[in-house]
C-alpha cells in the first residue's frame, strides 16, 4: 500500500492528475454541476486538443533541453499560409502538406541557428516569434482570405458523429499523443532526447548526435504547433492573423505543471496533457463560477501557482515515505 502510494506520488504527472480531480470536484460544485455536463465537456473538448498538441511539442523540446517561444506565431502562420496556398488554387492535401513543411522549415531554422551559433534558443525563438507573426500578416496582405466552404472538416474538426462528445480533432490528438509518448519512452530516439536534455555533454560523449536530436525536436515542436493551428482554424472557420498570441507561455506552463523540468531531461507527454487539462479546467471553471472580469487573471494566477505548489508538495511527501523501493 505504502509502496504504491509512493510510486504513485513519485510521478509528478500522476500528482497532477490527483490535483485535477480535486479541482474538477470543486468547480463541479461551484458551477452547480454544469462543469461536467455533457454540453460543457463538449465545449472544452474543442480547444483542448489544439492546446494539448502545442504543449506536447513544447514538452518534447523542453525534455531535450531547449525552448520554443515561437509556437504561438507558427500556430497562426501554418493555417494562414495554407489558406493563401488554397486560394491560389492548390488542392487541400497539398496545401496542408506545404503548410506543415513551412513549419518544419521554421523549426529547422530555430534549431540550426541555435546550435550553429551556440546561442540560447530563448533568443532564437523569440526572434522567430516576431518573424513568423510578421510573415503571417504579410502573406495575408493584412486581410485573412476566407476559407473555401468545401474543406474536409469531417476529417479534422467535425464531431465524430452527430451529437458525439468529441470532435475528430480529439482523435488526432489521442493518436499523436500516443505516438509521441511511445516515441519518448519506448524508442531509442526517445532515449537520446532524454539523454541530450539530461546532460548534453555526457550524451555527446556517449556518441549521441545531440545537435541532430535537438533539431528534430525543434522541427517536431513547430510542426505540432502548426497542425494545432490548422485544427483551430478549421474549427472556427477563419484564419485570423492574431490567433495563438501568448500561447508560448501557456504551453510552457502546461509542460511545467505536468512535471517537465525547465532544465531539461525530465518530462512526459502524459504530464503535458494533464497540465493542459488543468489550465483549461481552471479557465473553464472560473467562467462557470462567474468570476468578475477584473479578478479573472488574479484567479488564474493563484490557481496556476497552486497547481505547481501542490505538485511539488506531493513529490516531497512521496520522498518522505520510507520504503525500500528497489531491493
Amino acid at each position: 500500500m505504502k509502496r504504491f502510494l509512493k510510486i504513485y506520488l513519485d510521478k509528478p504527472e500522476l500528482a497532477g492528475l490527483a490535483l485535477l480531480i480535486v479541482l474538477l470536484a470543486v468547480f463541479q460544485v461551484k458551477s452547480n454541476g454544469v462543469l461536467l455536463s455533457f454540453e460543457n465537456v463538449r465545449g472544452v473538448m474543442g480547444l483542448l486538443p489544439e492546446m494539448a498538441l502545442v504543449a506536447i511539442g513544447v514538452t518534447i523540446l523542453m525534455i531535450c533541453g531547449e525552448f520554443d517561444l515561437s509556437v504561438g506565431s507558427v500556430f497562426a502562420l501554418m493555417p494562414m499560409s495554407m489558406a493563401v496556398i488554397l486560394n491560389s488554387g492548390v488542392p487541400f492535401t497539398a496545401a496542408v502538406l506545404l503548410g506543415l513543411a513551412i513549419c518544419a522549415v521554421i523549426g529547422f531554422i530555430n534549431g540550426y541557428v541555435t546550435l550553429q551559433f551556440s546561442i540560447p534558443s530563448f533568443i532564437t525563438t523569440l526572434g522567430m516569434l516576431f518573424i513568423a507573426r510578421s510573415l503571417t500578416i504579410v502573406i495575408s496582405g493584412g486581410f485573412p482570405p476566407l476559407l473555401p466552404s468545401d474543406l474536409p472538416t469531417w476529417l479534422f474538426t467535425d464531431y465524430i458523429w452527430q451529437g458525439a462528445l468529441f470532435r475528430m480533432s480529439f482523435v488526432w490528438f489521442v493518436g499523436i499523443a500516443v505516438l509521441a509518448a511511445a516515441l519518448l519512452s519506448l524508442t531509442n530516439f526517445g532515449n537520446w532526447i532524454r539523454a541530450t536534455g539530461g546532460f548534453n555533454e555526457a550524451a555527446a560523449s556517449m556518441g549521441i548526435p545531440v545537435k541532430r536530436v535537438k533539431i528534430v525536436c525543434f522541427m517536431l515542436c513547430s510542426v505540432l504547433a502548426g497542425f494545432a493551428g490548422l485544427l483551430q482554424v478549421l474549427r472556427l472557420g477563419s484564419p485570423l492573423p492574431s490567433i495563438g498570441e501568448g500561447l508560448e507561455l501557456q504551453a510552457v506552463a502546461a509542460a511545467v505543471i505536468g512535471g517537465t523540468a525547465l532544465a531539461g531531461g525530465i518530462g512526459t507527454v502524459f504530464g503535458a496533457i494533464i497540465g493542459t487539462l488543468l489550465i483549461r479546467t481552471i479557465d473553464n471553471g472560473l467562467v462557470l463560477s462567474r468570476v468578475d472580469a477584473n479578478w479573472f487573471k488574479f484567479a488564474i494566477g493563484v490557481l496556476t501557482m497552486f497547481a505547481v505548489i501542490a505538485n511539488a508538495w506531493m513529490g516531497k511527501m512521496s520522498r518522505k515515505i520510507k520504503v525500500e523501493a528497489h531491493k
Partner: protein
Amino acid sequence: EGLNIAFISHSSASNTFWQSVKKGYDDACGKVGASCQLILTQTEGSVEQAVANLQAAIASRPDAIFVAIVDNNAYDNVIKEAVDSGILVLAVNVDDSEGAKGNARKAFIGQGFTAAGYSLAKAQSENFPKEGPLNLLVGVNAPGQTWSEQRAGGVMKFLEEYKAEHADREITITRIDSATDLALTADRIGAYLNANPETTAYFDTGYWHAGVAKVLKDRGIEPGKVLLGGFDLVPEVLQQMEAGYVQVQVDQQPYMQGFMPVMQAYLWKTAGLTPSDIDTGQGIVTPKDVPTILEMAKQGLR
C-alpha cells in the same frame, strides 16, 4: 515634393481592423503622392510604445502626424511639441475624451470608444425580448486596456440606463474577461452560455464574438436565441451576420479613417484649408446591410 506623413497607432499589425485603416491610408497617400508611414506597436494596445513611436516620428520632421489618442494625458506633451514645431497633428480613430480642449491636435477623424459602445448596446436593445427577465453579458476582452474598457464602459452605460428605465423587469448584467483570441473567447463564452442558457445577449468589445456564433451553430442553437453584437466589420463577423447569429455590429469605417485624414492634410498643405472633425459614422450595421458590405470587406474597404 510630396507630403510626408506618419500615422501612429496603439495597435499591433495582427489586428485586422488596422489593416483596413492601413489600406485606406496607403490608397489615399498613393492618390496624392504622399510619402506615408504607418507605425504600429509590438504589443497590442501599448500606450508607452505608441508614445515612443510618436516621438521618433516627430524627430524625422514629417508634415503631418496622425495619432490615435487613447489616453487623455500620455500624449499631450509630445503632441504639443509636434504642433509647436509646425507639424499638423490630427487625432484619428480615437480622440482625447475631452476633445479639442484636452489636446493640441487640430481635428478628430473617427468615432469615440464610449459613444460607440453606447450605440451598440442601444441598437441591440431593439432586439431584446419585450418582456421577461434579461440576462446580459458584457465581455471585456482586455481588462485594463483603454479601447476595451471604454467600449465596455459605453455598453454598460446604456445597459444601466436601460435597467433603470425598465425597473419592473429583472435585468442582470455580468462582466467577464473574454480574452482577445477567437478560440479562447469562444471557449469562455461557450462555457458561460452552458451555465447560463437563459442569457439574452452577449456584447463583445471587438469582433471575437464571431467565435461565439460558431459555437452556437455547432450546438444547434438557432440564430437570435442569444443576441450577439460587437465592433468592426471583419469577414468572419459578416459571415455570421449573414447566418443570422450576429444582429448588430458597429462599424467605424476604418478605410475612411485611414483615407480622410490624408485628404485633410493634403488640402491643408496645398490649399491652406483648416482640417475639421469628421465623424466616420455611427455605423450600426445590421444583417440586411451585409450583402453589399461583404465584397467590400474582403478587399479591406469596410
